């Protein structure tokens, strides 16, 4: 088992003819994902790595029945791509694109919800489920192992760091979900943690947060009331200066709110073990699960 993606996942790649789209389609296929369609307006009838390309999401859905879409199109076109997938009835939409103006995401967020689709991201590395050999994203496949740990994170490479240390201790992952580093993202920590709690294949949960916003604090509260599985956390940005955006659009301590200290305190009071060094998570999870 896993969350969000599994052996039945059929992937549509929007922006498949671009550099990133084409490169990562190759890597997703190599990892074992079933990529059934690409969409690029004006490129219908072509193919990329033997994947047929369509002009519209609607046509791709009719012809190939994808149940998951991934978006590699540039920031100016990404909000529309998300809406096109939602309008096409794609139930799970993963948006990799970084740099979308935040005000654009307001109507997109609400319209995707109204369409009953789930959006992961934007500005995220995607989703991977090693047991099913399914990757919808840009996470490096080779560092992952199948196993019992569910990982959810706002970051990309920091997630890889933690995953590698988990795999080094033979602790595989049920699913890894990058929810994205932007201020407005489609899916919150709470929603993913809730899915892990209900997923029989997940035995422990790793939450990788960072400064900015209060999503981690809300998640901590949720964990205290609703989660029985052991949870381990790392919060990046303990030493970040206030009012400075640390790379991610959402990673900023603003008006004294969104600090790492508050997030760590919230997690600890919810019974979550918070590591001071990313690698410590793996050792803590190892001892909890053995």
């Amino acid at each position, binding site marked *: 088992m896993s969350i969000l993606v599994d052996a039945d996942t059929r992937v549509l790649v929007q922006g498949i003819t671009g550099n990133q789209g084409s490169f990562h389609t190759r890597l997703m296929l190599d990892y074992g994902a079933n990529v059934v369609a690409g969409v690029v307006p004006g490129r219908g009838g072509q193919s990329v790595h033997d994947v047929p390309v369509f002009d519209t999401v609607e046509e791709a859905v009719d012809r190939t029945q994808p149940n998951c879409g991934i978006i590699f199109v540039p920031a100016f076109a990404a909000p529309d791509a998300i809406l096109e997938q939602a309008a096409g009835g794609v139930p799970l939409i993963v948006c990799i694109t970084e740099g979308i103006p935040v005000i654009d995401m*307001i109507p997109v967020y609400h319209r995707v919800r109204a369409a009953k689709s789930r959006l992961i991201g934007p500005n995220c590395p995607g989703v991977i489920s090693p047991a099913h050999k399914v990757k919808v994203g840009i996470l490096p496949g080779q560092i992952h192992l199948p196993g019992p740990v569910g990982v959810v994170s706002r970051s990309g490479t920091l997630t890889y760091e933690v995953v590698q240390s988990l795999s080094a201790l033979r602790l595989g992952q049920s699913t890894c979900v990058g929810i994205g580093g932007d201020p407005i993202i489609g899916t919150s920590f709470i929603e993913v943690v809730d899915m892990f709690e209900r997923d029989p294949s997940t035995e422990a949960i790793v939450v990788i947060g960072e400064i900015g916003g209060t999503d981690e604090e809300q998640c901590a509260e949720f964990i205290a009331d609703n989660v029985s599985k052991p949870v381990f956390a790392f919060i990046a940005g303990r030493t970040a200066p206030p009012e400075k955006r640390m790379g991610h659009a959402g990673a900023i301590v603003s008006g004294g709110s969104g600090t790492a200290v508050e997030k760590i305190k919230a997690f600890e009071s919810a019974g979550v073990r918070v590591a001071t*060094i990313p690698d410590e998570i793996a050792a803590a999870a190892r001892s909890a699960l053995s």
Partner: protein
Amino acid sequence: MKLHEYQARALFAGAGIPVPASNVAFSASEARGVAEEIGNPVVVKAQVLVGGRGKAGGVKLAQTPAAAQEAAEKILGLTIGGYPVEKVLVAEASDIEREIYLGAIVDRDAKRILLMVSGEGGVEIEQVARNNPSAIHREFVQPSSALDAHQGRRLGFMLGLDWRQVRQFESIARSLVKLAVRIDASLAEINPLIVTPEGDLRAIDAKVNIDDNALFRRPELAKLRNSEEETGPERRARESGISYVKLDGDIGCMVNGAGLAMALLDVIKLQGGEPANFLDVGGGADAAQVRTAMEIILADPAVNLVLVNIFGGITRCDEVARGVVAATSGLDRDVPLVVRLVGTNEEEGLAVLRSAGISAYTGMVDAVNEAVGRAAA
């Protein structure tokens, strides 16, 4: 991107928000000229991109043009929050009956624009939130991003304004939200919005921050960027697609990925070192990008060692290694390097480093310990 008050006032005026007559002046004599044009008592205000101007002596009332010149002379010599004052706003002075706070931000939790008001104008909203949270009233703007008229009226009545003022307030609030959407503001704030003795509402301060991600489609706003908001290396980083924040330590840092870069700073501090910067070289960086990043790091004279921490995913280790070698071979400064390189094309990357006589670690903590030890030595 932050705007100066004079820039934000111009946007407010263009949006139909009532602001007193004003103009910017770059010298004391220019300030006098503006005061003469206005013809009434004026306020002379330092234009810096930080708060706390009043406490620092950066805001002065002047009854005559000569007094305005004198005030500007004093203010133009100040340094506020580390920024030398290079320009002043000269604005028609207003009599104040009452001060209100009105601000629009993007609320991350509600995923909407949030309009906040408080009867405690002139005070920072964060301070009101801490000390007297019940003084703040809120309205969430619909996802279509227009404030309904009734929402504006409700806030006006919550503030205890009379009906004539409520109608003015409603118009100002709706204009502010409309402006925020039109200019992709992450913050648009009037603090204070005053009620004059005649019972009219006026914005006598203006603060606007613009979403950097939106500047590609707002070229007219991108031109407003103030050079003092960033240092030379910060500007070069931004133009190269690199995220760079200067810090106070001596260990220069180059990382791929914002989360990993923050985590590296945390681990350096934990191990007793002091990072000189945050730097995310970006996903899929090539050798040229890495070289640019290295030059930006080394432009900081406080840096006496560079720690490179790369987890190759989209970014390829061999590209990073070539960039590191290229950047360090042509340098006039002999700065020690500590490299941690793992992930995509790791072997090829390590080989490139080896042939240049650079050794690399595979563990982040090992690399940090080495860097902290050598920086202290």
